[in-house]
């Protein structure tokens, strides 16, 4: 099926006017599949890290949300071992007026504001609630170990 005009326009804009701290490049053989990198937000345990993600636009996009997954290991209460993300705009709060760039900004914002009360990785969330300082320490360490060679 031909690529909808909207996806072409979004891709063009991502390349010509990229969001600071975020890159998204489509695969040559599948223009619905993007390699994404997101910089860890400053003043967060992920600062300085460059996180790799994959983003896929399903056939029904923009009527359904894109599928986004972390490829880089990350210690975060709302992101599980497989890199799946618990974020409302990717699930129930998706709106067809949102775009790839806005979704990636939301993911970046989630790194800056972890929410252990709505967890996906239960063990991480538990630790985050019981001993936040230690959890942040682990997050910082994981960022150093896994998210630094990505650049």
């Amino acid at each position: 099926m031909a690529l909808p005009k909207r996806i072409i326009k979004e891709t063009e804009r991502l390349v010509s006017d990229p969001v600071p701290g975020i890159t998204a490049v489509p695969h040559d053989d599948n223009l619905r599949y993007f390699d994404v990198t997101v910089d860890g937000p400053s003043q967060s345990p992920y600062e300085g890290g460059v996180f790799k993600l994959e983003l896929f636009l399903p056939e029904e996009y923009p009527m359904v949300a894109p599928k986004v997954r972390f490829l880089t290991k990350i210690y975060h209460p709302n992101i599980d071992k497989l890199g799946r993300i618990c974020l409302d705009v990717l699930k129930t709060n998706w709106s067809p007026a949102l775009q790839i760039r806005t979704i990636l900004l939301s993911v970046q914002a989630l790194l800056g504001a972890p929410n252990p009360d709505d967890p996906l990785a239960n063990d991480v969330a538990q630790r985050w609630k019981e001993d936040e300082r230690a959890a942040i320490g682990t997050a910082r360490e994981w960022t150093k170990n896994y998210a630094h060679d990505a650049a």
Partner: protein
Amino acid sequence: MEGRESSKTTSSYEADIRSLLYVSLNDNLVCPICCSAFVDPCYTKCGHTFCSVCLYKALAQSNKCPVDRGPLSDEDICPPPKILSNMVNELLVYCPNADKGCKIVIQRCLLRHHLRDKCHYALLECPSDHCTELIERRFIERDPAKCFHQPMTCPDCNGSVSEFEVDDHKTICAARSTKCPDCSQQFSMADIREHLDKCSESIVNCPSYRLGCGWSGRREKLDSHTTECTLTSLAPFLDRQEERIAILEAENKSLRAQVAVGGSNNMLDNDVLHIFTEHERFRSELERLSEQLGELEIRQSVMLTNQTVRMKEEIQNMRNAVNAIRHQMHFLMMERRTWALQSLATSSVLPPTANAVVSASTSLAGHGTPGGSSNVHEEVAHVRLMRRESEGYRQDVKL
């Protein structure tokens, strides 16, 4: 519902209309869902505009406005102001056959008419009865009855070509011979490109033309010029400078963007809005919970007081009962003492019949017949009275 009906009938046209290239397009006329200029726009009660097709597709997924997430149903949608429909219909577009050669720029609402009746490059059915292929209108205009799909042989390469392809084929046929415009020698199409890059007769510009050198002349003189040209000798240095400037500019741009993000949150508007709504939601939730908590507290305290009162009463009752028992006990002890004293007294008068007296007194109590010693009789009556009193106490306890 009308919007849905019309979208179905024009769906083949919709597919084309979304990929049109506009001469210029105002961002305010772009549908937030398909990111193209509005097609058959509609207007919601919350004040947002979408293409009808896009909005109905979105509503089929969830009954919320795609922009503000407020509740939205079919009844909340109405046609837009006429001026908006006119503005989008009058937008100038390039003909979709521009890549084939059509140079037309036309208002969007007239495009369908242009494609159906005018465009020389629009595909129509071949006029021949035996041919099912499509052919561009310009060929039909040339000869309305001829089939241009008949195969021909190219005179140069002997390949098989359809007649309508001949013009295009002539420009690419590798076997066709052509003349060099500069040195007048004959070359095949395959070789001419290579020759044009070398032909000593052709007029060329100085390689530093872009830096401002105005020299141009035959290629054979070029070498002697470049050895003298100062701009050519400076070129590598200038190139390096340009490269560095480009890098710095890119860096400056990204830094500027970062500052913009830090300073004003324009780029994050959507997210901020989202966070705000989320915040509102949490606040209302909190209010609801604190109300519930207050209610529960009141209910709890009322229950507690009720229970305490009941327990107090019970304790009071117990205390009464204990007192009654104490009284009874006290009385019985006294009774026993008097009984012992009396029996001691009677035994001194009638020692052998003491047992008989006791049995008599019990039988008297059982039958209620008067007789025996008056002392014993009085005693029995007294005991009865006391028993009745104690029964009264027992009843109190029960209450």
